[in-house]
C-alpha cells in the first residue's frame, strides 16, 4: 500500500505531473469533439449523395467522387492518413497540429459515418418517400422531414459507436507530436520510469469517458423511441 501511495505521488503529484493527463485529456476531447462534428457533416453529405444516386440515378459524378473517398479512406490506416495530412498536405503551411488532427480524424470518421447513414437511409421503406412525394413535397423536403429523421434514429447506436471508436482512435495523435491523453501518460512514464501507474490511469480515463458516452446515447435513444410506444 505504501508502495502504491509512493508511486502515485511520484507519477502524479511531484512536479505537477498530473497536468500532463489533464491537458492531454483536454486535447483528446477537443480533437474528438471537432472531428466527430466534421465527420458527421461529411458523412451525412456523402450518404445523401450516395443514396440519392442509388434511389434516383442522379448525381453520377459526385457519386464517383464519394466512392473514391470511401475506398481510399477505409482502405488505409488512420495513422498513415494523419502522417500524410501533416507531413505532406500541410507540410509547408504553418498550422496548429490540433487542427491537422481534427481534419485527419474528421475525414477518416466521415467515411465510416457515411456508410452507416447510407445503410440507415436505404433501410427506410420506399413507401415513406412515395408518401412524402405524393403530398407534393420535393425530394429534398421529403429527405429532410421524413427519411433522415427516421434513418438517424435507426442508426443512432451505430453512430454512437463510431464516436466511441473515434475517441479511442485519437490516441495515435502522438505520431505528429500532439500531447493528447495517451501521449501525456507516456511522457510521465518516460520521466518516472514506472509504466503501471500512468498507463493504467490513461486506460481508466478512456474507459470512463466511453461509459459516459454510452449512457448518454442510451438516454437519447429512449427519448427518440417515444414514437415506438404502443
Amino acid at each position, binding site marked *: 500500500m505504501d508502495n502504491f501511495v509512493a508511486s502515485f505521488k511520484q507519477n502524479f503529484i511531484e512536479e505537477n505531473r498530473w497536468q500532463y493527463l489533464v491537458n492531454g485529456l483536454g486535447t483528446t476531447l477537443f480533437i474528438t469533439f471537432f472531428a466527430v462534428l466534421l465527420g458527421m457533416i461529411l458523412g451525412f453529405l456523402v450518404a445523401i449523395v450516395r443514396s440519392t444516386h442509388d434511389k434516383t440515378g442522379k448525381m453520377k459524378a459526385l457519386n464517383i467522387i464519394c466512392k473514391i473517398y470511401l475506398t481510399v479512406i477505409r482502405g488505409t490506416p488512420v495513422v498513415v492518413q494523419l502522417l500524410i495530412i501533416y507531413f505532406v498536405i500541410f507540410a509547408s503551411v504553418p498550422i496548429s497540429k490540433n487542427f491537422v488532427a481534427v481534419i485527419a480524424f474528421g475525414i477518416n470518421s466521415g467515411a465510416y459515418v457515411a456508410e452507416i447513414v447510407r445503410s440507415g437511409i436505404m433501410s427506410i*421503406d420506399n*413507401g415513406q418517400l412515395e408518401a412524402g*412525394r*405524393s403530398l*407534393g*413535397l420535393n425530394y429534398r423536403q421529403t429527405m429532410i*422531414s*421524413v427519411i433522415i429523421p427516421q434513418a438517424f434514429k435507426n442508426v443512432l447506436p451505430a453512430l454512437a459507436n463510431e464516436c466511441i471508436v473515434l475517441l479511442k482512435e485519437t490516441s495515435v495523435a502522438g505520431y505528429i507530436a500532439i500531447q493528447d491523453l495517451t501521449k501525456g501518460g507516456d511522457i510521465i512514464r518516460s520521466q518516472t520510469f514506472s509504466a503501471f501507474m500512468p498507463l493504467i490511469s490513461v486506460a481508466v480515463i478512456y474507459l470512463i469517458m466511453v461509459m459516459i458516452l454510452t449512457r448518454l446515447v442510451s438516454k437519447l435513444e429512449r427519448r427518440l423511441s417515444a414514437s415506438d410506444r404502443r
Partner: protein
Amino acid sequence: MIDVRGLTKAFGDNEVLKGIDEHISKGEKVVIVGPSGSGKSTFLRCLNLMEIPTSGEIIFEGSEITGASEHEINMIRRRMGMVFQHFNLFPHLTIQKNITLAPVKLKLMSQEEADKRAMELLERVGLPDKAQSYPSMLSGGQKQRIAIARSLAMNPDVMLFDEPTSALDPEMVGEVLELMKQLANDGMTMIVVTHEMGFAREVASRVLFMADGYVLEQNTPEKFFANPENPRLKEFLSKIL
C-alpha cells in the same frame, strides 16, 4: 378533368400498360378492378406521375403532364391526393404532425392554421382524440383513416386510392370504406383500385375492368356486374362473387 391517351408503361422488357385511353370527369367515382398483375396500380400511379409513363399523354385540367418538370410534378401532386395500401404514415411524427407536415412545409398554411385544419379533418374521419398519438399506437383501420385525412389536408381536386383496404384485417375494412363513401357523397372525384366489389357496386359511377395492361370493359356498376360481356371479366367475376 383527366384525359388519358395511349398510355403505356414498361418496366424493362415487362410491358405493364399496353395502351390505355380513358376520360375521367369531375365528380366521378371510378373503381378499377381486375386480377393482380393487370396493371391497375401502375395505371393509378401513372396519373400522379409516381411512375413516369413510357409513352402516351395524360392531360390534367387542360395541360399535358407526362413531360412536366420536377417542379410542375410537385405542383400537380398537391392537387391529387393518394392513399396507399400500406398507409405509409410517418412513424416518427404524431398524427397531427403527419397531417400538417405537407401544408406547412409547402407554406400553404401557418402551423396554427394547419393544426386547426388537422383537428377539423380528424373530426371528419372520427379520430379527434388521436391528434397527439403516434401511428404505431393506432389500428390498421385508424391508420388508413388518418392517411386519408393527411391527403385531404392538401385540399386535392382528386383522390387516388391504391387498394386502400387490402392490408387491413377484415373487421377494419368497413370503417375505411364508410369514410370513402362519405367522401364520395361530398362530391370528391375519386379513382379507386380495389377488390371490394360491394364498394364498387354501391359507390362507383363507373367500373373499369383491367387485365393484361388493357381496360377490357367498363360500365355502370349495375350493368357491369349484371351483364358482363368480356369473357375475361365473366371469368373474373365468377371467381370472386
